[in-house]
């Protein structure tokens, strides 16, 4: 943005006058017959007078480019923030998963002990005891994997924040507190507020200014020069004056104008493309968001309470000697397992929600995009 503002300043600066010393026809014979230092020795001032409002148009163009940059900067900010948010939730989820996995190891340990107990009363055999041990070892491996996943999530979060965080806990809730948006609402919000779209629209204004600017490029600047000096041949002080300008006979900047017009035309399509692309991405993200929300809600309101109630009822039945302990353990496992799934549901819903509320922007560690698409006219050293 600052670069563009600099360019705007530079492009609007009036050309400096040129001071020159001129010596002409050095060695010409003077009236005395001797060679003189020249016919003319003197200083000349030359000033280019810019016409057609070129400077104003250039400045305007770069100011508009600065506005594009502003929008792109905002987009980048959202990318970074969304990344941090999403990874915060990922870390939170990893932490929840780890603690549930640790509970599930206890279930597996209980099953292994139960298998030994059953073995002792002749109600299970060696292979069944071995299988219970295998289930236990697998549950332990799951805990190790969950620990590793948590560490990785924490490190990624630390990287995204850009500050080293010491390993610890993250606090927060995975449950969403934002209202569920309809697709039309979400899309309307994107159309009205997306920084990407705003940048594309601002870029159209730039391209419009570029066309205006290139349209006046052929209007010849007038270069006026004048000065005074000494004519050694005439042995008197003389003056010089001159006016110069291009005669736009061949080069009326037609090519560049055409290129600028093409850019302008392209940008108008580009806005539409960005709108369509946003809609397309929103369509995918929204369905994932909706699916995630529906799952999370159904798990929270029906599935988890039902599984928990089933587990409680079986515990109570066991207490009254009405069911076998393995039935209770199975219910406990089912309940804990569904809680794992719910962490996934919540994380899924939360991730998509961050994207929807954050204009679908992510990947903040990638370089921010440039104002201009590749191949765009942007090639004059002096910004114009």
């Amino acid at each position: 943005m600052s670069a563009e503002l600099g360019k705007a300043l530079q492009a609007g600066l009036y050309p400096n006058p040129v001071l020159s010393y001129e010596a002409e026809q050095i060695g010409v014979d003077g009236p005395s017959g001797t060679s003189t230092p020249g016919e003319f020795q003197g200083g000349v001032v030359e000033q280019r007078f810019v016409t057609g409002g070129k400077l104003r148009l250039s400045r305007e163009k770069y100011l508009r480019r600065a506005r594009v940059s502003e929008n792109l900067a905002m987009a980048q900010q959202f990318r970074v923030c969304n990344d941090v948010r999403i990874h915060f939730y990922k870390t939170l989820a990893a932490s929840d998963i780890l603690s549930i996995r640790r509970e599930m190891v206890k279930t597996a340990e209980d099953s292994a002990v139960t298998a030994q107990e059953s073995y002792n009363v002749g109600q299970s055999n060696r292979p069944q005891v071995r299988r219970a041990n295998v289930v236990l070892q697998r549950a332990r491996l799951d805990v190790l994997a969950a620990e590793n996943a948590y560490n990785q999530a924490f490190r990624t979060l630390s990287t995204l924040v850009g500050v080293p965080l010491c390993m610890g806990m993250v606090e927060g809730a995975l449950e969403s507190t934002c209202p569920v948006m309809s697709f039309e609402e979400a899309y309307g919000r994107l159309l009205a507020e997306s920084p990407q779209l705003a940048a594309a629209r601002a870029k159209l204004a730039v391209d419009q200014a570029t066309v205006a600017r290139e349209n006046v490029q052929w209007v010849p600047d007038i270069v006026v020069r004048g000065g005074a000096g000494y004519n050694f041949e005439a042995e008197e002080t003389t003056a010089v004056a001159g006016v110069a300008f291009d005669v736009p006979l061949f080069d009326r900047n037609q090519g560049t104008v055409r290129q600028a017009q093409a850019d302008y035309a392209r940008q108008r399509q580009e806005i539409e493309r960005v709108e369509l692309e946003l809609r397309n991405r929103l369509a995918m993200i929204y369905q994932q968001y909706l699916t995630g929300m529906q799952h999370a809600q159904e798990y929270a309101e029906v599935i988890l309470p039902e599984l928990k109630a089933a587990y409680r009822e079986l515990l109570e039945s066991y207490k009254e000697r009405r069911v076998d302990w393995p039935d209770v353990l199975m219910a406990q496992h089912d309940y804990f397992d569904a809680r794992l799934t719910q962490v996934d549901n919540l994380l899924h819903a939360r991730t998509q929600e961050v994207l929807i509320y954050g204009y679908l922007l992510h990947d903040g560690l990638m370089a921010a995009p440039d104002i201009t698409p590749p191949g765009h006219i942007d090639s004059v050293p002096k910004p114009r």
Partner: protein
Amino acid sequence: MSQHESKPNSSERRRFLKTSALAAGGALYGGLVGTNAAAQVHANKMTDMQHGDKLPAPLGNPKSGRPAGYRDDYDGFSRFKPSRGNDPNSEFYLGKLVPGFRDVGAGPAPFVTPDLEKLPWKMVGGVKEFHLVPMAVEREVLPGYKLNVYGYNGSMPGPTIEVNQGDRIRIVVTNELPEDTSAHWHGFELPIQYDGASELTQNLIKPGKSFVYEFDIHEEGTFFYHSHIPMQEAFGSVGFMIVHPQKVFDPPVDRDLGLIFQNFFIEPSQSIADSWRMDWNWQTINGRSGPYTTPLVVKHGERVRIRIMNFSPMQHHPIHIHGHTFWITGHEGARIPHSAWVPRNTELVGIAQATDFEFIANNPGDWMFHCHMVHHMMNHMTRQVGPRVRPDQSVDAYLANLDQSPGVKLLNPDPGFKTPGYPQEMKGMEMKPDFMKRIWNRREVQGMRAMWPMSVMGLMTVLRVLPDDLYQIVMESDQPVEKGAVFAEIVRRFGNPSDYKSAPMMMHDMS
């Protein structure tokens, strides 16, 4: 004697007996009661009673124990002490034809079905008319355990129909089930159109509709009625139908008791019986499970008849009575001639069979009376694994926080697990206080050992043979009786008190 005696709530007769006894001086109960204040002190003492190895204070009046003027010895068989007699061919061998105290001329002893009602009737044009209503019923088989089953007139099993040989009866069956049904009069030799064998002999009775069965009774003995839709049978649709003989069965009995054995399958946390199951996890006697089955309380020396009817859908029951040898005197088909009676300790009663047991209650005590199938001696067998068999673990720790497991030691630290097969004894039985309150809140169980409910489960009940004075305290008074006191008194009188250890108290608030 009346049927009321087995019902704890119909206390009219008991109140009469009690007040007349108190009016007579109150000495009848010996050390047990005198004034209200004494009873109060006694009740307080009860709650934290610990006798250690000593017997509780004497109870009752031993001198009033035996009715006077009755013959005791019958050819070596004594009605008041365990005995066989001198000769297996004697008609008094094992008490075979030893009469009860009741006079033959007094007619048949009243038929009593603990925990079940009788179906009332009225005379209409010289015909005994009954109204039987098949309906869906909720039956509380244990305190707090209600079953959804089918039965009759609000009861499962249905109320007992009691008639006399030679009666003409009319039974108006009004179907309040949501589905068709019919009523079959099992064992009766009746006109075919009233047999109730659904489509074979009649159209089914539609919901809300009635069908009138009317026939003459020429049989006598133990019969029953039931729905002739198989799954309705499995769902509980049955009831006793007792026909008293014109010529009273000889020798006369003092007690005529009826028990219907049934079983059901009921899932945990479920109250609706599953009539399709091939295995059965709930056992009931007259619609109740042990220890909620009502003990059969009889007096020392009485002749007792117990009619057992097995209406389990899939299981035969070998039925065993402790402490006595009984004679098989009849099946559902007919009374057996004396010459064919068989003495037994255990009798297999098959599905849809009824068997009459008769014996002289000559051995006082609280006697186990049960089906001998191990898996029928409890409800819903469960495996001996989990917190129940682990030291220092309880289900409550799991219930305290359902989101976390309290965890477990990786080897069961109980040293018993070094022995293959351990444990076989059921571990960690828990009985809730309000459950125990309901169990104990019945006269029939007063004075039994404190721990008795732990051993009477499923298809089990108790035969209590009590000396007359103890019988009166238990059954004809409202006085509180210390747990174990009646039992200890019997040990004192008939056993070896020096060897006796009283039961530990289960819990304080259980009386």
